[in-house]
């Protein structure tokens, strides 16, 4: 029984930590992307004003 339990725990642990990692990575990159897009947009606006 203990083996069964540990096997499933390990498996789910691996899957969920991978999922967690993936989500974190996605959020990080999305943030970066928004930041850069924002910067570029601002730059463009400033150019137009000038």
């Amino acid at each position, binding site marked *: *029984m203990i*083996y*069964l339990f*540990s*096997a*499933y725990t*390990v*498996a789910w642990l*691996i*899957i969920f930590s*991978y*999922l967690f990692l*993936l989500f974190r*990575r*996605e959020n990080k*990159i*999305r943030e*970066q*992307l928004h930041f*850069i*897009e924002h*910067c*570029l947009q601002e*730059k463009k606006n400033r150019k137009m004003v000038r």
Partner: protein
Amino acid sequence: MKRLDAILLACSAVCMFIALYMVFIWSPIEVKMGVVQKIFYIHVSSAWVSFLAFFVVFICSLLVIWKSNELAYHIAGASAEIGVVFTAIVLTTGPIWARSAWNTWWTWEPRLTTTLILFFMYIGYLLLRQSDGERNKVARFSSAFGLVAFINVPIVFMAIRWWNSRLHPVVFGDGKNQKGGGVEPEMLLTLIVCVVTMTFLYVVLVRKGVRIARMKEKIKMYMEQVYTHFS
């Protein structure tokens, strides 16, 4: 795009609960090995996913080499990563089962060893993808390796099988997935449900990986723009 993702995620969640129910409550307990046999479901289904993932890597690598297809390259990357993760599951659940069934953590049995080598090869593949250099070059190189690695798998399997059967007595019968006697239909059904669940999960994960890779690409492109503005 978004909607399909939601549907897929919902599907895999529903399947997951059904699978869990079937594995732990519905399916009968195996006579010889007892309750431990239930490890088998997750073990086999993750093995299936990892092989599927590596097969996808193979196909996508071919597309990259042949047609220099960008999407295929992203899919290959996401797929290889998932493959490695699921191989890790196979490699941890396998020994746990082995410990209870055969009273040893590890044997140099063909399937186990092949999986281990597979694991190393695809870690190498992922490292190769992350190596620095011109993007197109890295894509070509890693795809070439993805192709060669997949071709190597059956050869490794054959080699190890011969190696074992010729010189060691065969202790554990024909492979580790041997189930005493025939398979109960309930067990088979449970297994199928598990495999389907894992496949859903795989598809969801690949889509997510591809999305991340694309965003990374976009960032790189923007960065180039920013740099040219400032230079």
